[in-house]
């Protein structure tokens, strides 16, 4: 009964969105009036309808209404309520509904927080946002309706993939969506500004806020996903250059470039065309990421909900949106803004241009690395894999130079053209960071060239950020660069942590019998005993291990779970803190326990610094959004 309500709500929201579009056209083109109350009201109604239908879907999952196909395929009565609910967006149909909800949510957020912007720009932005909303609503209703029925009604569901039955993964997709689907708003804002001839430096100050918000969510979402992979998959790593991870990284890199170029546009009235292209690119890459994940063209741990036929539809949508936005861009771009595009060599604006150059290069590597195997197999039938080594080899030298430039850029002046005033700083940062690098390498007694270079470059950035913090301590909380310092510090620490982790982590694979111990690389693993337990939706076998490293002992309790619906084994890791590092162990689920259990042990050096850096990067974004939210833009 309630499922019918959901389906009806979806149809009604579709019709409401249609009438929203009609109202705008009628208002603006036929009557030439600029009173949009009714139009805004209709848009709000469409948002509430989508929100309501999403709630209905959650209720259907919570009460296990198996008359709905997606509930039947992804849920089970034996599951805890929390995972019944999160299963609502753990499948294709439900997640597409969430996708639309986020598009609509950003529209509403914009409506509520843009009263200081002129009404015609607001209305036109909402108009484009409604078009995007309508495109995806029709995709949802016609190809993947979450409320589709099944008859006869099954008594029991098939259950959710156990690997998704994890609290972090339940909240990870919503954050990712709040991130990359959120870029739809600044995309709509761009098209609206182009059409209304309001694409100028004031537009940049309005738009920046709407980039910072989804960017923060996306940073957080990527961090969460990485953390999830780290403790759930049991492979010891935190980033696998998996195509699906790359899919979320692509819009992140593009939007990071955008955040920087839009500042130049705002402050110096330069880079208009480039900023517009980046805005379009960011949103297109978000959609492209959706396509990669949803279409099933990938071989990945994450590709759990896909269907090739839908891929074709999404590709079609991407083509329409790309072509549409490019046509608007070409026809409406203000040509008069192009004449001022000169850059001085040692200016802050040029360093931002360099930043964009590096980011776009990194983006190209990620795009090529992700899509090349797919394209190659389509055109030649040959299959190749592109793994971490490709990315590490090709990116590392660029990242190092990028870090140095990241430290120098902010020291320079806008439009400035000399190094003399900052030469001293650049030089003294080098002295300090070389000194620190020597200390670190002596302490860790490691003198590998790449290790030293990685530490030197990241320490250089960290030193420069600390210098700025110390120099501006009084005005620190009011100054504009507060958020930048956070994010840059986070990035410096991130690369430092990755370098340390790469060179000092240890990995042991061994088969250990009950009661016996294993000694290697200064680490002793003792298999003390095993226990088993029964839960509602799985049986669990625990192994209790004593780890001895550098006179410290850790008791770890990894386990293997046997899920019932669907029947599947998962390995649960056990992790303990050792300073900023982790002692990490996972059991293998193959074989008979009496024959000895295979364990994978990892000593993950400084891995916690990686999560701290992710947090710092995100905080920087949030601070910038909040600060921009409080200031009057127009």
């Amino acid at each position, binding site marked *: 009964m309630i499922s019918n309500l959901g389906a009806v709500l979806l149809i009604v929201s579709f019709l409401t969105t249609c009438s929203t579009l009609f109202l705008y056209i009628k208002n603006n083109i036929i009557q030439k009036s600029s009173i949009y109350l009714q139009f805004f009201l209709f848009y709000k109604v469409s948002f509430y309808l989508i929100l309501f239908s999403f709630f209905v879907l959650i209720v259907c999952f919570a009460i296990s209404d198996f008359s709905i196909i997606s509930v039947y395929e992804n849920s089970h009565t034996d599951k805890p309520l929390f995972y019944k609910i999160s299963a609502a967006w753990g499948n294709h149909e439900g997640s597409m509904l969430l996708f639309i909800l986020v598009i609509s949510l950003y529209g509403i957020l914009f409506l509520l927080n843009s009263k200081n912007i002129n009404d015609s720009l607001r209305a036109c932005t909402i108009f484009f946002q409604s078009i995007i909303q309508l495109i995806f609503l029709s995709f949802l209703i016609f190809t993947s309706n979450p409320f589709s029925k099944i008859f006869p009604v099954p008594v029991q569901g098939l259950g959710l993939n156990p690997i998704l039955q994890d609290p972090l993964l339940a909240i990870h997709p919503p954050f990712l969506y709040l991130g990359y689907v959120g870029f739809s708003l600044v995309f709509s804002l761009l098209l609206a500004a182009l059409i209304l001839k309001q694409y100028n430096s004031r537009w940049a100050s309005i738009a920046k806020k709407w980039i910072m918000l989804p960017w923060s969510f996306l940073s957080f979402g990527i961090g969460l996903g990485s953390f999830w992979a780290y403790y759930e998959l049991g492979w010891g790593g935190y980033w696998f250059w998996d195509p699906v991870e790359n899919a979320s990284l692509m819009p992140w890199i593009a939007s990071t470039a955008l955040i920087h170029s839009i500042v130049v546009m705002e402050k110096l009235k330069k880079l208009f065309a480039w900023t517009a292209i980046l805005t379009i690119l960011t949103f297109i890459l978000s959609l492209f990421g959706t396509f990669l994940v949803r279409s099933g063209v990938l071989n990945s741990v994450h590709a759990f909900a896909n269907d090739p036929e839908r891929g074709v539809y999404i590709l079609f949508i991407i083509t329409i949106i790309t072509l549409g936005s490019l046509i608007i861009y070409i026809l409406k771009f203000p040509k008069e803004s192009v004449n001022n595009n000169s850059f001085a060599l040692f200016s802050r604006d040029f360093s931002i*241009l*360099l930043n964009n150059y590096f980011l776009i*290069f990194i983006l190209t590597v990620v795009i090529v690395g992700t899509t090349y195997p797919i394209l190659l197999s389509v055109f*030649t039938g040959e299959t190749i894999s592109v793994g971490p080594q490709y990315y590490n080899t090709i990116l590392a030298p660029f990242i190092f130079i990028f870090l140095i430039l990241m430290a120098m850029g902010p020291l320079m002046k806008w439009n400035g053209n000399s190094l003399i005033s900052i030469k001293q700083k650049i030089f003294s940062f080098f002295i300090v960071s070389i000194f620190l690098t020597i200390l670190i390498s002596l302490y860790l007694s490691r003198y590998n060239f790449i290790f030293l270079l990685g530490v030197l470059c990241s320490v250089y950035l960290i030193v420069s950020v600390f210098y700025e913090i110390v120099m501006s301590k009084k005005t620190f909380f009011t100054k504009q660069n507060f958020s930048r310092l956070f994010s840059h510090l986070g990035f410096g620490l991130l690369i430092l942590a990755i370098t340390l982790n790469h060179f000092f982590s240890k990995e042991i694979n061994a088969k250990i019998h009950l009661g016996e111990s294993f000694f290697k690389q200064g680490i002793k693993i003792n298999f003390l005993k095993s226990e088993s337990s029964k839960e509602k939706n799985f049986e669990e076998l625990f192994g209790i291990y004593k780890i001895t490293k550098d006179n410290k002992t850790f008791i770890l309790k990894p386990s293997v779970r046997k899920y019932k619906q669907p029947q599947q084994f998962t390995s649960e890791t056990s992790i303990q803190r050792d300073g900023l590092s982790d002692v990490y162990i996972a059991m293998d689920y193959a074989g008979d326990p009496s024959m000895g259990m295979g364990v994978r042990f990892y000593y993950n050096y400084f891995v916690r610094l990686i999560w701290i850096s992710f947090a710092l990067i995100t905080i920087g974004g949030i601070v910038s959004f909040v600060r921009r939210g409080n200031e009057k833009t127009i």
Partner: protein
Amino acid sequence: MRNIFLIILFFFFIPVQLAMASTEREINIYKNIRCLVCQGQSLNDSNSDFAIDLKKVIKKKIINKKSDKEIYNYLTERYGDWILFNPPLKINTFLLWGFPLMFALLGGVFLYIKVVAPHLRQ
């Protein structure tokens, strides 16, 4: 300045793991090989029957003093390039390596002509 940059660049393309202990060498090889029956896992991360058998084969080859290259050749002959995570530079991967570097070069030249050259002329 540019020469230094090129030297640094070439430095990174020299394989990093020249001198490694035998076990570390094993793990490095496992990490570079795809477990064909899994979803995106490397041999090192997997304990499927396929992974276990293949690890045994590789271990044997190492004991027989085969070089990494010989082992990779043996595997690609049987399973194709799909099995290697680190794509070798061949005709079919030329663009994979070449395109980003070409892009970097073109972007660099563009910035040089636009900004650096006028500055030097002054």
